[in-house]
């Protein structure tokens, strides 16, 4: 299909794509430029502009300098907190979702479509609405102000998405495959481990990417259910914007935003290809 001739329609295609790409990049460019401007420069000029003096120090301040309350450690320790919550919650919710999706799609049982329907509904329950019930639950099981509690919250909430996408993916697995395995005497786990899991990498990549970015970027639960030094990186980012008698710290904040977004950006950059591939199979049909 590839045409060697340089016809006008292809020029048009490249033109449109480039324009769209520029539009999509514009907000990122603004943040990158601001990350090189000092707070004062931004306050004295405008929020959007070219750096007069390249303030590399913003990055040092963002990474290990600025103070949140009594500790002046930058966002470094908060990145670690976020990782400590995001990584386990992502892995556990993905694994449980895979098993649940496998059970719902391939091991039909009474009431499965009801449960599946309710789990799907969970995607739509607004986060604000669940804050107080989670407070009650975490209080009753004694996990308030612990990272474990936060992992639990994100794991259970993530199950809606992971179960939904895994179920749709596994629905396409030929039933004959499972039937043959059962005739050979393989049970629930054996089939999952030997047959299903090796087929699953595309959809697992999708759920991992999705869960990772959502949990990493979450703020509301992060600040409510942790305390002091355990807070996630989003809390540290917001801390920079919340001083009443100060100029907004746009320069340092932009640098901090970019550092904090690095893990998720990398996940998308390297996982993007597989994301598309996995979505092909995991789409609701």
């Amino acid at each position, binding site marked *: 299909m590839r045409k060697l001739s340089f016809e006008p329609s292809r020029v048009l295609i490249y033109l449109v794509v480039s324009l769209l790409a520029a539009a999509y990049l514009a907000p990122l460019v603004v943040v990158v430029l601001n990350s090189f401007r000092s707070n*004062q420069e931004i*306050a*004295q*000029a*405008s*929020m959007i502009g070219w750096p007069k003096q390249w303030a590399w120090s913003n990055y040092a301040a963002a990474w290990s300098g*600025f*103070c*949140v*309350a*009594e500790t002046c450690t930058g966002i470094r320790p908060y990145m670690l907190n976020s990782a400590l919550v995001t990584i386990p919650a992502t892995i556990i919710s993905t694994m449980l979702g895979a098993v649940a999706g496998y059970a719902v799609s391939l091991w039909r049982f009474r009431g499965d479509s009801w449960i599946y329907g309710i789990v799907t509904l969970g995607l739509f329950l607004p986060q604000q609405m669940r*804050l107080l019930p989670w*407070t*009650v639950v*975490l*209080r009753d099981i004694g996990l*308030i102000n612990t990272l474990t509690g936060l992992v639990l919250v994100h794991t259970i909430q993530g199950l809606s998405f992971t179960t939904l996408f895994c179920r749709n993916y596994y629905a396409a697995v030929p039933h004959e495959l499972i039937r043959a395995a059962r005739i050979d005497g393989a049970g629930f786990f054996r089939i999952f481990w030997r047959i299903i899991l090796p087929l699953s990498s595309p959809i697992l990549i999708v759920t991992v990417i999705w869960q990772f970015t959502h949990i990493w970027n979450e*703020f*509301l639960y992060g*600040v*409510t*259910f942790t*305390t*002091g030094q355990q*807070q996630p990186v989003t*809390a*540290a980012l*917001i*801390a*920079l914007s*919340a*001083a*009443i*008698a*100060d*100029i*907004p*710290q746009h320069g340092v904040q932009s640098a901090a935003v970019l550092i904090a977004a690095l893990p998720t950006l990398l996940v998308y950059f390297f996982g993007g290809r597989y994301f598309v591939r996995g979505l092909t199979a995991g789409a609701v049909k």
Partner: protein
Amino acid sequence: MPMTITRRRLLAGSATALALPALVRAQSGVKPRLTVISQWSAGSDGAAITALGKKFEEKGGIWQHSPVPGFTTEMMNKLRAQIMAGDPPACSQLKGPEIAAWSKIAPTVDLDNLVAAAGYEKVVAPDLARLHKPGGNWISLPLQIYSTNMLFLSKRAMDKAKADKIPVTWADFNDLADKMKAGGVAYPVANGGTRPDDGQKFEAALAGISPAAYRAAIVNLDEKALKGAEVKAAFVQVRKIADWMDPNVGAQHFSTNLKRFIEADMGMMIQGGWAQGVLRNAGFKFEDFIIAPGPSDNGKPVFLLNADAFIFWKRNEPDLQAGQTLMAQLVMDPAIQTMYSQITGSIPVRSDVDLSGAGWSDGQRRTAAALKDAVASDQAVLSLAHNMAQENGMTAAMIDVITEYVKNKAMTPEQGVARLSDAVEGAR
């Protein structure tokens, strides 16, 4: 029968008497510890509370501050979660009528003895004191004061208007704005457009027109006052202010306009005392602007009070109780209030602090003087926009109307009055 009771009482009494020295010893033996929740995490707010923590530690205490970055709402979410979990902090930031509201959901500490020992009551503005002892006893302590209606004048804009007189009344203000406009200042008013900023425009207008009407309508929610002529006049004044602003400001923070304010593209700002700190931290010079009390039609300063405070939650742990005592003493200490306000740019709650020293700015001195005058003439009133006059639900319902009025030029002052009283009715 009565005999036994008396004896039992006697025994109990003597037991207490015997135990008392030991108890005191035990209490003085524990290291005071304080758990604190606030939203002051960074910048000068963060620096100020950090300095307070240092003082606490110098006195031998253990300081456990847990800042909740973000809006006040997030701090309250955290506080709510802790209270629901039965583990409130020993001390937390809270302000205005929310102190009364929250004190109903969890037990607080009676600070009356400590307040009396410090002689604090007579040096606190009466309207302010009332907020901090909702049930009659002190359960919380104000820490610092801002005025929300200071008038900031751009020197260069004054030059353009060929004016050197600081406006006193709203008529003066309007006159100066017209002169600025005629002199080439594109936008005589430099405010931002956030919700509290819009609220500040209205409260400055109404309190400046009549502090008594403000108190009746906004603080006491008197129906007649809400529909009164002063409230309508305030809406008329707010429309003028809005018309003098750059419409492009939208909902931006006032700090986005500072450069244009200093360079006389904009002329005046009705803003809280904190704007002084923002201007200073942005690298602008004090020579470039003037700070004065907000316009007041009767000529005497009107002070819209905004005060940050700490509330003390009941804890049974002796070390936390000792920490609460120490914290309360520190918060009321003039030296500590001086330190705190010099970092944040506010003024001390105590009216007996001397502001003539080098650590204070002219703006702070003027603010403190305005407060003293306003208290003397009973013109210090509680700010609506900064959640000092009403509980949050009522405040937000009123600000809804005000911010819509500021942004919607088609809305008439009559509609403003009608919707404001409807909103109050709906939120009651």
